């Protein structure tokens, strides 16, 4: 995690170079605050100084030099966090299947409308990572949807390695075999490099030799860098598991190679809910939350709702968003679908804030509104689950980055009139 922190600090520095705030203190006054860390606060006040929350509680007099955002009659909550997305890149997948050395960093388009929509939809932090269609797809990037360059947007560089258990071509057994071979090659390489660095003979079996391996101590080929970090537990794997059997195999791989991993599960994974519960790690759900399964013999179509099933088994999950003009595109909509089928409101809202923040290793900074955390929040016109709420304002690390009253594109959508 150490290099990530350094990079995050660098990114923060870059941000402080970008748009100057009118004042160092921002006050969000009035409004109902959903802190995601405790009870709601009616008519609350949040003070943000130098990007961090310094006060959160009932309303009181605001410092004279603060920039005030009036949230009276509105709802204030942490900006949404999406832990797995393919937005803002031209192509989600490399055409070759084993490309651990590529990074989303090199394909992200800072001017993509995806990020503009993130602001409009209240998404304050998003991990953009290669899609599902490769074997080892490359590394992702945690960004905020604000800034003119990829560097200015970056929160965590090389934030995770995308791995797919399901084969796009060929069979599942060859997919697993190829994964093992790729892992074993790197392990062998690291053993050899270590032996070289220590001028000691290569040892065949060294249990745990990776955990205390200092990768900085010897020179790693650039092509092998990300995989070396993955196999020494310094880079998290995001493993795509569309079906239940993929979950079982992914868990076996994680154990065998001692990976730090988060599963990204598709709808078919509902049958593996018990295995997910036993593993104890929070999972990321694909966009499709409700799906009808057809029994070929009876013709019966049965609705399965993945978040409801997982919640019933005690599995914690993060929700992700899709594309399109409405529906799964919105984090609040995804949370509402979960609530529709019996997931408690608090669990559903945490699944688009606190849980994804925790998965991304940013739980100490974002996902809840607490003293000391980043001043990254949204002001909504209505309750997030009402289906009628619009994002009025978004603040990222104390910088007001979105104001609905100045959003000409949204106004044009609402009025049906063409943009000037």
């Amino acid at each position, binding site marked *: 995690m150490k290099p990530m922190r350094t990079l995050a600090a660098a990114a923060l520095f870059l941000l402080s170079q970008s748009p100057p705030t009118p004042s160092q203190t921002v006050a969000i006054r009035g409004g109902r605050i959903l802190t995601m860390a405790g009870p709601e606060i009616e008519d609350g006040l949040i003070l943000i100084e130098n990007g961090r929350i310094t006060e959160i509680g009932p309303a009181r007099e605001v410092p004279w030099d603060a920039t005030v955002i009036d949230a009276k009659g509105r709802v204030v909550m942490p900006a949404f966090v999406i832990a797995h997305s393919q937005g803002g890149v031209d192509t989600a997948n490399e055409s070759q299947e084993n490309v651990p050395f590529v990074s989303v960093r090199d394909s992200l388009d800072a001017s993509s409308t995806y990020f503009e929509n993130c602001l409009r939809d209240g998404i304050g932090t998003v991990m953009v990572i290669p899609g599902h269609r490769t074997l080892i797809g490359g590394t992702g990037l945690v960004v905020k949807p604000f800034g003119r360059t990829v560097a200015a947007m970056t929160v965590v560089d090389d934030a995770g390695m995308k791995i797919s258990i399901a084969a796009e071509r060929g069979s599942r057994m060859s997919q697993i075999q190829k994964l093992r071979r790729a892992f074993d090659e790197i392990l062998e390489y690291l053993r050899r490099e270590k032996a070289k660095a220590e001028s000691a003979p290569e040892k065949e079996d060294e249990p745990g030799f990776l955990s205390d391996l200092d990768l900085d101590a010897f020179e790693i080929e650039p092509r092998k860098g990300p995989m070396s970090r993955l196999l020494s537990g310094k880079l998290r794997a995001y493993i795509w598991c569309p079906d239940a059997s993929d979950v079982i195999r992914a868990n076996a791989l994680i154990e065998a190679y001692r990976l730090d991993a988060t599963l990204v599960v598709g709808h078919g994974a*509902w049958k593996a809910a018990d295995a997910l519960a036993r593993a104890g790690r929070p999972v990321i759900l694909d966009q499709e939350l409700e799906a009808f399964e057809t029994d070929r013999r009876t013709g019966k179509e049965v609705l399965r709702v993945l978040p409801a099933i997982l919640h019933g088994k005690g599995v914690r999950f993060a929700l992700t968003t899709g594309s399109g003009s409405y529906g799964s595109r919105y984090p609040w909509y995804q949370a509402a679908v979960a609530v529709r089928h019996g997931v408690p409101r608090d669990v559903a809202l945490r699944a688009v804030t606190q849980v994804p923040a925790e998965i991304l290793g940013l739980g100490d900074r974002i996902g809840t509104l607490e003293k000391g955390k980043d001043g990254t929040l949204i002001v909504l016109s209505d309750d997030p689950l009402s289906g009628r709420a619009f994002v009025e304002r978004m603040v990222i690390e104390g910088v007001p980055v979105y104001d609905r009253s100045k959003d000409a594109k949204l106004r044009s959508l609402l009025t049906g009139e063409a943009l000037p």
Partner: protein
Amino acid sequence: MSLRGILSAALLVSLLGEGMPAQDQGGVVAVRCGRILTMTQGPVENGVVLIRGGKIEAVGRDLPIPDGAAIIDAGDGFCMPGLVDAGTARGLDRGERENEEGLEVTPEIRVADALHARAGGLSALVQNGVTTAFAAPGVQNVVGGLGVVFKPVDRSGSVAVLREDAALRVTLGPEPSRGNRPPMGEATSLFSRRPTTRMGVIWALRSALHAARERAGPRGGAAPTEARSVLLRALEGDLQVRIRCYREAEMRAIFNLMDRPEDRFEDLQVVLDRAPDAHRLADELARRGISVVLGPVAHAPEGRRSAGFDPSDVVVPTPATARILVERGVRIAFQSAGSATPDEVLVHAREAVRFGLSPEEALRALTVSAAGILGVADRVGSLEPGRDADLVVFSGDPLLPTSRVRLVMIDGTVVFEENGGRPTP
């Protein structure tokens, strides 16, 4: 739903078995509900819908419930007429591409011959509260054929037909010409044909209508073919024409066909289909009394492309279209068309409300307006005496994204009921 409600409804269904009529034809069913949206006679709080022989007998607050009536207690739910999907491709093997190949004008083809009750997706439609739907042949032909209004339930393998030959499918969008090559030599695919341009599409329609009219004239003589008699009925305004279109220019082409001296097909009863640009011509549509069937709202999950043509490269839909049309006096309905989303029409209504359509109008578009457009408002779309007992009970306000379908009834029979409020793992 209260526990008692769940139990009594579950008991009823378990006693009678799924798909069985709740009562004999003469039997009486009473649905008690916290809020009843009749759509035509105002809402009723804590009322009862009384059903006899599959038809609604009465709706009211203090109705006496006859002895021996089966009671379904829907607790604090919202009860409303079953939703109307004003255009679906579910139930068709090839979805929106269900077209007879070889000719671009096939008015006499009937989609009803292809619909079957156990086709994939129809049950999912019902489970999302849809009890009436319209289906038409696909959109690959300029004149596709005859559509049908039906209830998505199994009646001896077929669906329950509500209205045969309800409308004639015409497509003026890019679908009929997309990918076509001029026919040369032996035709090897659907695409070896004309038209190859949009002007060709309009011409194919014009020439078919002219041919039908001319041959029907005094010099025509011969008995009209079936294809021609279908077109004639459309020309005389006896058969609704459901026109798939996208751009303003395509809508203006329709007006031209109705207005220009050399065409004067002024009696065409036009309903626009999809028409994401319709709000630009709202006043004109209102003046001509043309209704619009909007949708789908296009939010298929990423990575799973909806089959066929994506209209967003023609016109980007505006979420305000529904509101603007209704405000200017145009009747609207929603449709799922080729969408993979089973709750498509409901989602569309929810989107329209978020973008300014009044909740009352959104609910009307889902029920009574859609039934009106499809010509079946005397049977479905409202809860009033004499109408078919097709209803849906939601757990809360149907327009909230957190509300779910608890129970669906068609012709007085419970066809779907949620499993104790939680999907079975």
